[in-house]
């Protein structure tokens, strides 16, 4: 057991990654690149137990995601149990598999909200980025979601190849009647990190998209609320990691590992606890993994003596690891970091669009995952 120096807060936001199976192959997926070796999904009964444990810890928002959560035939059963426990249930889906029958069953089970992803406002780019033909299907699913009276969030991951269509993406959200639009600029972990040189927008593209969003906000008011999530690579101060490591958020992976963020599985030296070996209460309060970066005792310089340390809490651990090799380093997005130059090198590298197009994207497929696992195993 680890002594907790920092009073633990509640895991208000709990995400259940029900499966890594997914009909889409998006090149910016946040799932681990070695998902193909992760087997042995939690059973219905195990999920029901875990949800009850999370609820008794104070969790109230539940994100049901994956992979594609509709790949689980017991999704309706899991939603019903979550609803019975008092969760606000969010289904985060590509829409593939969401037909009239399942939609009605989910409504009856007490589902509160559906977040539907699009990859772009055009069929061509949507289908290219997800490596599927799903654009028309998504539009039909949007109609179905509204017909059943659900609030709908449309989500679109934004990057170099679609950032210039932000106006059209907002138009699409208005057209399908979404209440919220999440324009989530790609965060560079997992598959997105493999494809970073193709997906990172230029500084000019980012500034232009921000101006477009501001213009729409002024014009459309509350009709559609736009959440614009910006990657912080172009900033000089990092963002908080999940509102603070182990403060608000936990992700339960398909095989039962519990993570402080979606990407934590790749962090070296951190043994992630499993719901198959411990209770969620012990995991949240006492596990070494969840206590590792709580508070400020772990911080190196320049964070330790920084007056802003409680504002950003040293930034993102996954970004620090990917860019410096040290999971406990100051997030190099911070211009006080001695390694900030690595970020500048990335964002200032000349990246003509031609080169972006010519280097093929690494799509999230089981085959590519197997290949990456094999490469990682090479001495």
């Amino acid at each position, binding site marked *: 057991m680890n002594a907790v120096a920092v009073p633990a807060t509640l895991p208000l936001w709990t995400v259940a990654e029900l499966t890594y199976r997914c009909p889409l192959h998006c090149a910016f997926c946040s799932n681990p690149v070695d998902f193909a070796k992760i087997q042995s999904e939690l059973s219905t009964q195990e999920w029901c137990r875990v949800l009850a444990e999370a609820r008794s810890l104070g969790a*109230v928002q539940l994100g049901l995601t994956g992979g594609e959560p509709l790949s689980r035939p017991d999704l309706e059963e899991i939603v019903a149990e979550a609803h019975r426990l008092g969760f606000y249930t969010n289904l985060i889906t590509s829409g593939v598999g969401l037909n009239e029958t399942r939609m009605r069953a989910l409504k009856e089970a007490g589902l509160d909200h559906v977040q539907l992803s699009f990859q772009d406002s055009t069929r061509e780019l949507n289908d290219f980025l997800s490596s599927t033909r799903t654009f028309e299907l998504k539009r039909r699913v949007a109609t179905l979601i509204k017909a059943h009276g659900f609030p709908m969030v449309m989500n679109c991951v934004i990057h170099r190849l679609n950032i210039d269509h932000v106006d059209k993406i907002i138009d699409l959200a208005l057209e399908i009647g979404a209440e919220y639009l999440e324009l989530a600029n790609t965060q560079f972990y997992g598959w997105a990190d493999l494809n970073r040189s193709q997906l990172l927008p230029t500084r000019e593209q980012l500034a232009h998209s921000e101006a477009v969003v501001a213009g729409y906000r002024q014009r459309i008011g509350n009709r559609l609320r736009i959440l614009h999530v910006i990657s912080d690579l172009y900033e000089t101060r990092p963002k908080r990691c999940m509102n603070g490591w182990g403060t608000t958020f936990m992700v339960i992976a398909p095989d039962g590992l519990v993570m402080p963020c979606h990407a934590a599985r790749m962090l070296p030296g951190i043994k992630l606890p499993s719901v198959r070996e411990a209770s969620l209460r012990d995991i949240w309060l006492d596990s070494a993994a969840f206590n590792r970066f709580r508070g400020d005792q772990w911080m190196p310089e320049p964070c330790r003596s920084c007056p802003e340390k409680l504002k950003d809490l040293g930034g993102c651990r996954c970004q620090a690891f990917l860019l410096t090799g040290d999971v406990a380093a100051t997030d190099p997005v911070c211009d006080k970091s001695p390694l900030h130059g690595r970020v500048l090198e990335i964002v200032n590298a000349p990246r003509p669009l031609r080169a972006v197009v010519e280097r093929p994207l690494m799509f999230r497929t089981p085959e590519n995952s197997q290949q990456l696992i094999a490469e990682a195993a090479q001495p």
Partner: protein
Amino acid sequence: MDNPTPLSRSAYPRVAPLYRFQWEAAQNAYVLLFPEGMVQLNVAAGEILRRCDGKRTAHEIIADLRQAFQSDAIDADVEDFLRSATHDGWVEWRDTVTP
């Protein structure tokens, strides 16, 4: 008319269907839940929204709150809150009782 002028004392305010209002023992507070978000309400806001069930007029709600808070000087505060809650989309108004 489906959307009467907000803050008419004879209209029936209710928590909008896109929101869920519930007591959270772990937070010792009422909360308002919506897609991927939550607002923790203070005691006054919780007590007001608890009464916005579509079955009482604003007039009845204010009278009830005067009793609950043992004060006749709360009208302006309640109306201010209902105005901003309406603006934020948390509360909507009906001319008749919600069945």
